[in-house]
């Protein structure tokens, strides 16, 4: 083959660059489209709901009158359910991920489990709701409580946390594990001093992605029977109850509740259009909750990763 002349080389490069630029333009266009849609949605909610962004909106219970209705029981309910979800799903998910990566032998059984964890992530959330209704609400007698809801959502996000944990563990170089084992550490010591701490940023990201998904879930929560109209808060630990007795530390987990998405759904289904303003405002608050969770995740991951270099 004859070597290319300078002109020919330049022509080849120019043709390549043209394709580069074409792709770049397409990419920017698609990105812009997606961003515009999101910004428009948020802006729409802010504009529609602007009348309700007052302190009262956050401190009032639901009400028959739209202007006086607030989201107190909804946001408190959402936070408490998330707390239960995190307390249940994080230890389980991390332990399962750790076991699968560090302890389990590779055989057909672990392969089967692996495939099914991926499948679980794809199960529609309403199915988890049905499962929880049967098991948590009736079988275990947990009722239509914060505990039932938290456990249900914990099941829902368990696969996300397991997968995140495993991926974070896989990113740790083998030589770190070997370095630990070589001084005589057991597997458990290696996990405790190295694997878990170094995987933590990745695990944390998974946890928050999971919680961000859970906080917006409506279907399974409705299935297990969250209330749509509730004018009291779960009993705070050690507070004095109506009958003069003192609430236990964990009485709140058995309390009935509602959550943000259900409150929103409830308002949108009212005939009075004034409630649409409430729905829009609450939608924005929910959105802000999710975004701030993501922000916290990004911040923590950045802080923790700074010290983890191989």
């Amino acid at each position, binding site marked *: 083959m004859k070597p290319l002349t300078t002109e020919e080389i330049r022509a080849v490069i120019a043709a390549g660059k043209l394709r580069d630029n074409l792709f770049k333009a397409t990419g920017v266009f698609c990105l812009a489209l997606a961003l515009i849609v999101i910004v428009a949605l948020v802006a729409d909610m802010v504009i529609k709901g602007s009348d309700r962004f007052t302190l009262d909106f956050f401190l009032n219970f639901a009400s028959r009158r739209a202007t006086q209705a607030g989201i107190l029981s909804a946001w408190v309910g959402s936070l408490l359910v998330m707390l239960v979800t995190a307390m249940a799903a994080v230890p389980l998910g991390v332990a399962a991920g750790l076991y699968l990566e560090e302890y389990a032998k590779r055989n057909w059984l672990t392969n089967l489990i692996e495939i099914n964890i991926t499948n679980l992530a794809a199960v529609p959330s309403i199915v988890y709701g049905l499962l929880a209704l049967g098991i948590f609400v009736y079988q275990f007698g947990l009722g239509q409580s914060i505990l039932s809801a938290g456990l249900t959502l914990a099941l829902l996000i368990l696969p996300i946390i397991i997968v995140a944990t495993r991926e974070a563990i896989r990113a740790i170089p083998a030589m770190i594990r070997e*370095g630990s084992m070589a001084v*005589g550490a057991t597997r458990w010591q290696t996990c405790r001093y190295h694997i878990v701490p170094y995987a933590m940023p990745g695990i944390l990201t998974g946890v928050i992605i999971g919680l961000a998904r859970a906080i917006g879930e409506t279907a399974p929560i409705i299935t297990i029977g969250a209330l749509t109209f509730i004018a009291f808060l779960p009993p705070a630990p050690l507070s004095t109850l109506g009958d003069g007795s003192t609430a236990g530390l964990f009485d709140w987990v058995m309390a009935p509740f509602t959550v943000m998405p259900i409150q929103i759904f409830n308002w949108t289904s009212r005939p009075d259009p004034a409630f649409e303003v409430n729905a829009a405002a609450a939608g924005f608050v929910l959105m802000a909750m999710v975004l701030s969770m993501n922000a916290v995740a990004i911040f923590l991951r950045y802080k923790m990763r700074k010290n983890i*270099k191989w």
Partner: protein
Amino acid sequence: MQIHDNPTLKAEARNLNFFYGEAKALKNINMPIYDKKVTALIGPSGCGKSTYLRSFNRMHDLYPGNRYEGEIRFFPDNTNLLAAEVDPIEVRMRIGMVFQKPNPFPKSIFENVAYGLRVRGENNKRVLDDKVEHALKGAAIWDEVKDRLADLASNLSGGQQQRLCIARALATDPELLLFDEPTSALDPIATGAIEELIHELKKRVTILIVTHNMQQAARVSDYTAYMFLGEMVEFGKTDEIFIKPKDKRTEDYITGRMG
């Protein structure tokens, strides 16, 4: 000096075979390792040096499908390191290892060295301080890090990191120290420092070192073993191996006709 008198045995491989699954990587290896001496393993890439080295601290047990046959006797207690009933963790507590690429943990310099002690249940601050200082001095890095023990180990230079890894291995007083090409990722000056250190270390610990560098083997070792395709071709005193090797294959390798 009694260099030529009978040295004491520290370990001995007897009819050692090793398999990665079906693939046989070590073929009937017999070789002594002498107490408080440096033994170098040389041979072309892929001949099984690392495989052999990692058999001593049962590193292969970490991965499924690996299998040993034969024995590695460890003295003075005459334990077979490879015996099924011998706990690999116990073996690793007696035998330290330094890897090809420095692999400090992403923790402080202090914690890196203290780790082996913590694993053994030592949590007394005074004892840890003492032993960490001793190990860092032993690894000739104390003066460079004594004012910043709380700093991250990953901020050290490559050569310093490798000496830190040596300190980590020394902190627990191993009887045998394994080095797998410890200087292959380092520049000549850092390499010189490690070689000097090895010379110093053999006063108190037995050393088995894999190296690709013929000059290094000649400089640091008392004994040299030449491996080829999973076999131990020749073992002897380093000066004898380098000056008049008995096996044609050793001679070819040393004179640079291959490898």
